[in-house]
């Protein structure tokens, strides 16, 4: 885990959640930027997951390795699924769906740090 990247990921997820809620509040369906930003945040999550997985399989020992790895997989998978589901029906509610995905992912990323710190 890299502290700076973790902070960037959380800020990006928070910004995406705010953007999604704003879209719903303004009665606008998800636009092309929703997909682009969600894609960029997913790329960041993937980078973080690869780095953390390499460290875990490279010998870093954690008290709950399996739990950590499950959270790692969840942190990468939820946002793309939510974005797909949000854009499948282009109504004002799509933005809120993206926000739910972003918030759930943020909780998983937050927990990742706790599970990592417990082993350090």
């Amino acid at each position, binding site marked *: 885990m890299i502290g700076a990247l973790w902070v960037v990921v959380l800020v990006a997820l928070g910004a995406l959640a705010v953007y999604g809620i704003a879209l719903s509040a303004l009665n606008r369906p998800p636009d092309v930027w929703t997909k682009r930003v969600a894609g960029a945040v997913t790329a960041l999550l993937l980078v973080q997951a690869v780095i953390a997985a390499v460290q875990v399989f490279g010998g870093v020992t954690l008290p709950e390795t399996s739990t950590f790895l499950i959270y790692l997989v969840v942190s990468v998978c939820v946002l793309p699924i*939510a974005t797909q589901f949000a854009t499948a*029906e282009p109504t004002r509610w799509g933005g809120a769906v993206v926000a739910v995905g972003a918030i759930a992912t943020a909780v998983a990323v937050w927990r990742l740090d706790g599970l990592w710190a417990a082993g350090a």
Partner: protein
Amino acid sequence: MPEPASGPAREPVRATSSGPGRVLIAVYGVFALSATARAGVQIATRFSEAPLAYLLSALAGVVYILATIGLAGHGPGARRLAWAAVGFEMVGVLTVGTLTVFDTADFPDDTVWSVFGRGYGFVPLVLPVLGLWWLRHTRPR
């Protein structure tokens, strides 16, 4: 293929999986995933510590999965499934919530429904209320 929206005179869609229902399904999906994964890890790694709490976690996970499937599906069968799952969820969170407030001994480890879902920002308490309201709101007339 769903028909594209053709104008303001179009009949409102009464499917549970449309409009704000999609936000509800997204939240249910997240809880289905997190409750099931959590219960899976608990049962696989330390089942003997708190078997009742962990089995309850697994039950909650299954209920969230069924509710998600019911709300996301179409037709009367999916609607019945959603009513049953969300109704069970309502009873479950109220029962477990009340028991855990008054008697902590039987529940040494937290479940999704402990203390009305306090560990999850009380979302587990609000969710079935919204779910039942949404099912009623979209019921065929």
